[in-house]
């Protein structure tokens, strides 16, 4: 029986400052459905990127043995040649092209110098049959629903003679019917001899479909559970996913004092105008003065969308119902500028993408949100600006030769401190921190936590969005858990533990 198609042996992958994978072993039998689970940042995606050649041979240590041969993939094209195809969460289809054009995009069927369209269409039809899609192959992909687009991706993989199909959270964007259909197709592919590796957060479907379940945690393999021999329970998986020691890196706050409710969100339902589906349903949360409220949830749960839709990014989100109450007063913000004026600040999870102006210096980035305070008449008071930037640099310990240093040259932790300094200078009533410690080393983390404590002691309210369980448990006074755009639970810090939170986070 033991017919191993793929083995990844002692894989270690290091990014600057972080060991993303630490001596990972991963073994897949031929023809099985193998599920890979773990928290965000556990290393699932990294492992799959190593396998598919996104991180080429030489940038990691360890061996990939595929069909009894050590492989040295230099690119995705190399791994696809061998029959390993990965389908990402963000689909890689061209919306304006037809299904058949998409299926053979990049490996067109040629007839001499030209594309053989007749053969292409007939082949595409066959592939569509295999995935159970009864649609005219000349339909444009943009006219398909997300579920059917997913099936086209699988058809595309089949056209490449796939042996191992990797699916990265294939059902994350699908509704229940589409998900079920997809899982049925995956099972059917198994009977055609296709091996399948699936990354997923949804434990229910994992249990329904998996032959083997491998759990990763903090870049290491925790266990491989054989689901064929005996049924695996959700609790068993959760126990393996969490179980991390909460280190003593969360500074305690003495004599907590909570005031009145500062910010309250009621019945918040938001639609993504591009995809045309709801991304948040009836969300109700509130935060009191002097309180740190955690907002936990896995990737794609809608936490960032919640923050940004409150913060006035009306371009990207369509509000269907709901209201924002700030100190009991009804508010609505047409853009971030208005939200900031009212006293709400949002520290983005994507420092480099939309948080900082990397080509400018520390001073510039600290003052940008509060230039009004530095301006007398027309002119910015640069002396005062320098003084304030220097004060922040010293008080929160931004490590840089001077405040004239370009922010792009700073480490992640110091960039994060610059972001915090920017908002501390604004002095908002409510500070929304989105993954405040992502990609930051432990020392800087501690400093940021201490800073958060200091800010709430001064009466600020903090909403901390985080997918790191220990952090949410260690820092929050109260926490909400989100899954698929809804609040699935609210817990007081003293009642919460990892199992409870994780169970809520994977609830669907």
């Amino acid at each position, binding site marked *: 029986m033991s017919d191993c198609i793929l083995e990844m042996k002692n894989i270690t992958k290091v990014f600057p400052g972080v060991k993303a994978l630490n001596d990972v072993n991963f073994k897949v039998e031929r023809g099985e459905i193998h599920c890979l689970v773990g928290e965000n940042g556990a290393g699932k995606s990294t492992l799959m990127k190593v396998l598919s050649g996104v991180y080429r041979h030489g940038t990691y240590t360890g061996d990939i043995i595929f069909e009894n041969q050590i492989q040295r993939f230099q690119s995705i094209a190399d791994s696809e040649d061998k029959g390993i195809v990965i389908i990402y969460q963000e689909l890689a289809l061209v919306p304006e092209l037809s299904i058949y054009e998409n299926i053979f995009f990049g490996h067109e069927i040629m007839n001499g110098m030209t594309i053989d369209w007749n053969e292409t269409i007939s082949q595409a039809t066959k592939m569509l049959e295999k995935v159970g899609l009864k649609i005219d192959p000349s339909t444009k992909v943009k006219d398909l629903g997300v579920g059917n687009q997913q099936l086209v991706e699988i058809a595309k993989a089949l056209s490449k003679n796939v042996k191992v199909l990797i699916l990265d959270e294939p059902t994350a964007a699908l509704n229940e019917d589409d998900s079920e259909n997809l899982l049925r197709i995956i099972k059917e592919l198994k009977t055609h001899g296709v091996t399948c590796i699936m990354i997923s957060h949804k434990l229910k479907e994992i249990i329904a479909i998996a032959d083997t379940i491998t759990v990763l945690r903090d870049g290491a393999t925790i266990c491989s559970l054989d689901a064929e021999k005996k049924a695996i329970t959700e609790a068993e998986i959760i126990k393996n996913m969490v179980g991390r020691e909460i280190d003593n890196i969360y500074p305690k706050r003495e004599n907590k004092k909570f005031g009145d409710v500062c910010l309250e969100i009621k019945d918040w339902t938001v639609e993504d105008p591009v995809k045309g589906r709801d991304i948040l349903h009836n969300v109700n949360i509130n935060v009191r003065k002097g309180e740190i409220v955690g907002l936990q949830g896995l990737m794609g749960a809608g936490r960032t969308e919640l923050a940004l839709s409150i913060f006035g990014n009306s371009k990207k989100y369509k509000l269907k119902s709901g209201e924002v109450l700030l100190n009991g007063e009804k508010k609505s913000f047409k853009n*971030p*500028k208005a939200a*900031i004026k009212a006293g709400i600040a949002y520290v983005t999870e994507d420092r480099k993408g*939309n948080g900082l102006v990397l*080509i400018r210096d520390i001073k510039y980035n600290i003052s*940008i949100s509060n230039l009004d305070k530095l301006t007398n008449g027309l002119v*910015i008071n640069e*002396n005062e600006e320098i003084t304030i930037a220097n004060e922040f640099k010293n008080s929160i310990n931004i490590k840089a030769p001077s405040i*004239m240093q370009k922010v792009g040259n700073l480490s992640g932790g110091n960039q994060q401190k610059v972001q915090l300094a920017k908002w501390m200078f604004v002095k908002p009533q409510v500070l929304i921190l989105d993954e405040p410690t992502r990609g930051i080393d432990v020392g800087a983390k501690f400093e940021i936590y201490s800073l958060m404590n200091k800010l709430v002691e001064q009466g600020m309210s903090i909403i901390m969005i985080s997918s790191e369980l220990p952090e949410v448990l260690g820092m929050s006074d109260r926490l909400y858990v989100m899954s698929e755009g809804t609040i699935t639970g609210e817990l007081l810090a003293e009642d919460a533990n990892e199992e409870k939170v994780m169970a809520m986070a994977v609830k669907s």
Partner: protein
Amino acid sequence: METKQVKKSSEKNIGSEFLHLLKANVRDYMMYIALVIIMIFFTWKTNGSFITARNLSNLINQSGYVAVLAIGMTLILILKHIDLSVGYVAGFSGAVAAIILTQLKVNVWFTILLVLIVGLLIGLYQGILVTRVGVPAFVTTLAGMFIFRGLLSLTLQKTGTIIIPDATFNALSNGFIPDIPGLDMGIHVLTVVIGVIAVALVIFSQLKARRNRLKYNFKVLSMPMFLVSLVFVTAIIMTIIVVLAKYSGIPWTAIIVAIVLLIYNFMLNKTKLGRYIYGIGGNDQAAELSGVDVKAVTLFAFCSMSALAALAGVLYTSRLQSATPAAGLGFELDAIASSYIGGTAVSGGIGKVTNTIIGVLVIMSLTNGMNLMGVDVSYQYIVKGIIFIVAVAFDVRTRKKGR
């Protein structure tokens, strides 16, 4: 004893400090070096007629409209947009000016004010398309190119080229500032006075900035190096001033460009608006989330661009002393090339209007010099195009290394 040694070592280091500076600012210095080389080359090729006072005055008068356009274009390019319509907006505005002035007999200054308002409205129209409707600037202003070219020929359809008899209007791009009456010293005294004041202001502001930086313990040039750079700048300003003073003095065009330059330089470096422009160019999403009204700032940039294009149209019309249907052809190319040669980053977020002026001088020296040499216009385009692409390629490479 010890202090002496320190002094000695610091003297020794001037050379290495200079090299270090050269390395760190190679992009900026290249621009000056290129300008000097171009000037020397044309002086040599034209047996000195390039560098005469007469020709330099000419060069300034010819450059005025391009300088004004390039300053506005720098803002647009920092914001990662582009404005292709500026040429014909300038041409059209010039024609409007001519009509208001000659047919409606309106006072010169009021005419200029009206034309600037026309420019502002054009900017409002294009800016709203870009920011509110969401049409890319490239497309909006390409359409603008069609529209204003059409409006230009429509405006001049009945009259053909309009000759402008107004001396005041024509002086804007042909005349010189008057001298202080009653003095006859064989040299233009007011020009020299202005030159001395300018040098004094430069030295004063540099000293102030240096003292300020020292106060906060920031890096500054060593004293000897600082003095060398001051002497260098002073020498350049005074050379130009003396050459001009021996001829007819400072052209009005130079005064107008200087005022526009000062305003925009002040705006970009000292005000919130300037900060926001650089912020949006550097990372528009971060700027938005930091509370910058990206749309309003972009709208402002387009309004300012078209208003400056209208001013450029006035300068060009004044230069030719007439409004012609051919005005505006290719202005946008010179303006965009000048700004990029002056170091505006193709990826946005970086650029200085002061450096843009150097870019204008590079482009216009090429035009002027090649005209003096009698080089065919076809070759002129090719040469300018090559210099342009070399400058940008160099810029992209040096910036990559810097990151």
